[in-house]
């Protein structure tokens, strides 16, 4: 039994303090308008908020644990034998074994808080359960250690974080390394499709990327922690869309670019998850894919406010020769030899 852990700096015990958190007062709510006002001006001047009293760190531990003390993982094992056994294969067991982290023999309590009261009462109310906290509070527990790492950069602005998808929604903290961080392609895809059911349904279409076959995984194209690109598209070569990782021949730069490829990416013309149309095209015939932009409206870009409205030529689309534009415009993704993308 001990009430204070050594080397707490290495593993900041923000969520695990045996000391009660400062009670939230009305004054914190009273600061809300000011905080929002600051947010509204984008808070570029961080100094403007520095004048405010920093809020207390999140302390969602149940009140019953206020007087609790640390008892060690062995005490947890007595009742939670199954979790203890599974945890032995989990990478987080390093917390239990590693003296540097300051939680040696107390890995359970590093996330769940001091457990003496719970050990005595066996009541769920006497222990902190991250799965029942708000996602932000759950994440904060993880970020105690994982905050200053590359994943956090994308995560802050990533859609998963914004939609309250906490770390533990994907990462099984108690289980095997594969469940903590899936590496098998089928396991990754299964994890993603638990929520993205409709996306997975797109892969049942005949023309698709080979995810159901196990040749690719969702994270080959998307970074679940977020990127600076829309839809958390992976990047390659620093800031190029991850599509070019496989489709290197489409990467360019081309001597004569086709603007939508750069401006809107592959999804301007393709349904990357799957389509009933060959080549995963967004339209059933190629000509419609093209004509929706190259609409022949006799208006210049300046007047129409859209690019590409005027076509490069007039063709008789009743002739089968002209019904598929890419028969002649063979380098539709960009050409190195023809401004009209003919070769």
């Amino acid at each position: 039994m001990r009430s204070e852990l050594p080397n707490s700096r290495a593993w900041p015990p923000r969520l695990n303090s045996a000391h009660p958190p400062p009670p939230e007062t009305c004054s914190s709510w009273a600061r809300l308008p000011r905080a929002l006002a600051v947010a509204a001006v984008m808070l570029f001047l961080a100094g403007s908020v520095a004048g405010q009293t920093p809020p207390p760190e999140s302390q969602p531990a149940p009140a019953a644990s206020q007087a609790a003390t640390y008892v060690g993982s062995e005490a947890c094992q007595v009742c939670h034998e199954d979790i203890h056994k599974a945890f032995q294969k989990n990478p987080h067991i390093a917390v239990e074994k590693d003296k540097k982290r300051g939680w040696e023999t107390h890995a359970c309590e590093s996330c769940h808080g001091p457990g003496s009261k719970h050990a005595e009462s066996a009541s769920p109310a006497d222990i902190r359960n991250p799965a029942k906290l708000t996602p932000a509070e759950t994440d904060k527990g993880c970020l105690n250690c994982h905050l200053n790492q590359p994943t956090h950069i994308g995560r802050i602005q990533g859609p998963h974080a914004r939609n309250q998808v906490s770390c533990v929604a994907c990462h099984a903290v108690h289980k095997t390394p594969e469940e903590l961080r899936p590496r098998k392609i089928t396991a990754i895809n299964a994890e993603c499709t638990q929520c993205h059911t409709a996306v997975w349904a797109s892969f049942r279409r005949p023309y698709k990327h080979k995810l159901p076959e196990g040749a690719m995984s969702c994270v080959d194209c998307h970074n679940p922690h977020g990127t600076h690109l829309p839809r958390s598209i992976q990047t390659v070569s620093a800031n190029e869309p991850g599509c070019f990782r496989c489709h290197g021949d489409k990467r360019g730069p081309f001597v004569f670019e086709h603007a939508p490829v750069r401006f809107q990416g592959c999804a301007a013309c393709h349904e990357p998850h799957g389509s009933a149309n060959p080549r995963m095209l967004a339209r059933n015939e190629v000509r419609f894919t093209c004509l929706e932009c190259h609409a022949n409206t006799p208006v210049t870009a300046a007047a129409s406010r859209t690019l590409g409205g005027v076509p490069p030529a007039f063709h008789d689309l009743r002739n089968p020769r002209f019904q598929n534009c890419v028969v002649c415009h063979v380098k539709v993704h960009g050409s190195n030899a023809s401004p009209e993308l003919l070769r």
Partner: protein
Amino acid sequence: MRAWPALLILLPLAAQETAPAPKETAFAIQEAAPGAQETPAAQETKPAAAKTKPAATEAKPAAQETKPAQEAATAAPEAAASAATAEPGLTGSLDVGYRWRTGVGGSLDTYRSVVNLGDGPKLFGLDLSFQSATRRWFDRIGVRANNWGGDPYNTARVDAMRHGWYNFNFDYRNIAYYNFLPSFADPTISRGFFLDQRSYDTRRRMSDFELELLPGRRIVPYLAYSHNAGSGRGITDFVSDVNEYPVADRLRDKTDNFRGGVRIEMSRFHVTLEQGGSTFKDDQQVFTSDENFGNRTTPFLGEQLFLTNLTQAYGVRGSSIYSKALVTANPASWIDLFGQFLYSRPDTTVHYAQYNTGQFVNLDALLFFTSELDLLNATAKLPHTSGTFGFELRPMRRVRVIESITTDRLHNASFASLTQNVIAPPLTPQSADFTDRLVWNYNQQQVDVLCDVTSRITARGGYRYVWGDGLTRGSLISGLPTESGTLRRQVGLAGLNYRMAHGVSLNVDYEGASGDRVYFRTSLQDYQKARMRVRYQPVPSLTIAAGFSVLSNQNPAPSVNYDFLSRENSASVLWNPSGGKRFSLSGEYTRSTLRSDVNYLEPQTLDQARSFYRDNAHSAAAMIDLALPRSGQLSLGGSLFRSSGSRPTEYYQPLARLVMPIRRGVAWISEWRYYGFGETFYSYEGFRTHMATTGLRWSR
């Protein structure tokens, strides 16, 4: 093959490090049911069945990435874990067997374009893990391989690590791409020819090596190398004035990417610095030596146009350097800062040569000629800079403010010099120089305010402003050298996450935008996007989920009049009573509809016309697993896709699978599967086939 040197190096090491094999067989039984390694057919319907994890209080999103710049956090503890708890020796599973395919009824080319699985002996799956007893060179090596033996997609992966010293990952993919669909590009189909003039029979091989040193320390250097090569053949068109000729195409491209960097992970901040570069080459060749009359069926000005000999050689070489800097910091408990700077500068040089003989016409000069030689030298450079800065501010315990600013800007400048030399009849060579330019600047600023209204409800509101400008070359008809466009869009954001009692969770996400400037007629302009997900888990063995999403987009400009609407409704259920001891059931269904309507003018008449596209699709998958005596398992299910609208399509894949343990550690696995595909408007592209697979699985 570049995959094997690493395997050959690592496997002997593994053999040395592995503890002495037990007296009994090296593979001992662990499970009888289908486990980690599914046959490809099984994989396709597995995701629903794989949902055995009890639903958390919120949605379950994607898993983690395997890229080196992402998961430092798990690397060190993972290594420590294996060092602390691993039992030395070999564990894993091996699936081998044989696949039979009945003859393909209907179009074999479509079958190869969609499925492309063949007969023969196969290595369906290999998943081995070696735990070192001595831990001299490594703590653990994992080797995985799937779908080897002539399948169209082969994968292999090796993970090796030693705690505190290194993490090594190797990933290999070999993916075949066959695409021959006459309905896609065959102008001559009315004449009875079935030829896709844009077809491919290629393979793409990708290898990725990553080595991370000193994982878990404050300073973590890393190195990585990627190789990506595509090769094969196809059919493309040689385009000459007023006629185009389908000809053979030989494709060969290669990209090598090198990068290295260092991660500095301190208590209050993190910095990643990376420098990389790549080389690229594309040696596509188009050729024919047969007489070819092309797609034109009639003489032009009384002359029959034809091609007798062609050589087109694309010699494209490219290189790139790039830099990456990432920073996060938490200077105080109430604020996190983050930023990244990304810069790349790819460039391309081109040497193109074309020699063609036959009968051609030059429309500009109204000249018929029989032989031509074109030479082109060109270069292009595309500097590309991206940056993001933002912070998460926590002014109160329940409130978070996330602010981010992103900019992404590139411009491409190119120059080409073309010499056209008409050899017969002999003419003076004509030279022409081209310059081209493309500019794209994109900026986005977004602020979100998230509030934990109660312990069960989190609400979110925000605002996004997107702006930018672009420049590209003008069309020939407009006569303008360039066209420019601008982007301006204001987006309102909202979200709600409600974690109700009794295992119910609800997530709602909404975006509504008003834009007055867009780049293209079909770009997002005035749009509403909403998504809702609900999950219900009344008991641990039963999970029901449903999702709904809608995207509505309009561009009301009179010359555009674009109207787009898509909806997706999905539901899934997983029932796993008693842990699946007797049976388990999984199923999912998705109904999606898409409607797109935009005006255009027929090029030949300039009459008003509409591009109207509809797609109404049903997609479903189900699987029931029945426990059999002696730990056997019978699985029945499959998937279907059926759509109506602009391209009505049906695609069915029922399957049955039997797994029977033979002895300890060995199971017999058999599977039957049917593929049926049909398209209402292109009946000649339908196919159907049966496939049977049988094999053994060793597991330990």
